[in-house]
C-alpha cells in the first residue's frame, strides 16, 4: 500500500453563526468569527489517497485525473467564494475547518475509483489544521 498526497490552495471567506443561538451566545462562542460580513483565509488542502502501485504504470493514482477531480469538485466550488452563501453544504452548517474537511471528503470520496481516499487535511492558517479520515 502506498499513500499519495496532493496539495491545493484556495481562498475563501466565511463567518460562524448558529441561528438557534441568541446574539449573545453567538458572540460568546464564536467571538470575532461571528462578524456577519465575514473574513477570509488562504486555505491549503491536502488530499491523501492510498492504493497498490499499478505494475504497468507505476502509479497509485493518475495524478492528472486526481487534479481534475480536485478542481471540479472542490476548487471550482470554493475558491474565491463566500462559503456561507455560495457553497450549499454551508447553508445549514457552520463552515468551520472541521465541517470544511468533512464536506471536501464527501465531495471526493465517491468520485475516486481506483485509489481510495485516506485523509483530507485542511489548513485554515499555517498553525491550524483539521484531518478527516471518514470516521463516523
Amino acid at each position: 500500500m502506498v499513500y499519495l498526497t496532493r496539495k491545493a490552495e484556495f481562498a475563501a471567506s466565511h463567518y460562524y453563526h448558529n441561528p438557534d443561538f441568541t446574539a449573545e451566545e453567538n458572540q460568546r462562542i464564536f467571538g470575532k468569527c461571528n462578524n456577519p460580513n465575514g473574513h477570509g483565509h488562504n486555505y491549503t488542502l491536502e488530499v491523501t489517497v492510498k492504493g497498490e502501485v499499478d505494475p504497468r504504470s507505476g502509479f497509485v493514482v493518475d495524478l492528472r485525473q486526481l487534479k481534475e477531480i480536485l478542481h471540479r469538485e472542490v476548487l471550482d466550488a470554493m475558491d474565491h467564494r463566500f462559503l456561507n452563501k455560495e457553497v450549499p453544504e454551508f447553508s445549514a452548517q457552520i463552515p468551520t475547518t472541521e465541517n470544511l474537511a468533512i464536506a471536501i471528503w464527501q465531495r471526493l470520496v465517491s468520485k475516486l475509483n481506483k485509489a481510495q481516499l485516506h485523509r483530507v487535511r485542511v489548513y485554515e492558517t499555517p498553525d491550524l489544521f483539521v484531518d478527516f479520515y471518514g470516521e463516523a
Partner: protein
Amino acid sequence: MKAHLTRRYMFSASHRLHSDDMSEAENTVTYGKCNNPYGHGHNYALEVTVSGPVDESTGMVCNLVDLDGFVQREILQRFDLENLNTREEFVRTVPTTENLCTTIYDILQRGFTYAHLDKVRIEETMMNSFEYVGENCVIQ
C-alpha cells in the same frame, strides 16, 4: 462525525543534556555538544492534536479559545523563555525533546478535558521532530 484538529504553537527555551547517572566521559560521548554546561537554546514548534465528534451546533471539535487558553496557561507560560533544566518537571529526567514531548502530553492529558488528546508533536529544529501518542497507541 469525528475530526482531528491540530494547533501549532511556538516557544523558545534553553536546555543542557546531562545525566547525573553517567560519568563525565559518558555524558560527553552520549550528548556531544548538547552537554555544554552553559546550555543552549531552541525555537520549539509544538503541535497539539485533539479529536472528537464535530458538535452539530458549533461545527467544532472543541472551542479553540479553550485549547489556546489551556496551552498558554499550562505549557507556554511554564516553558517559554525558560531554562528547562531549572524546571521541576526535569529535576529527575534529562530535558531531551523526547521527555519534553511526554511531559507536555501528560499535562494536556490530565488537564484538558474538552476533547480527546491524540498526539503531541514537537519540532526541536527544522531537521528533527518528535511525536508522542501515549502508551499502547499507534501514530496514524
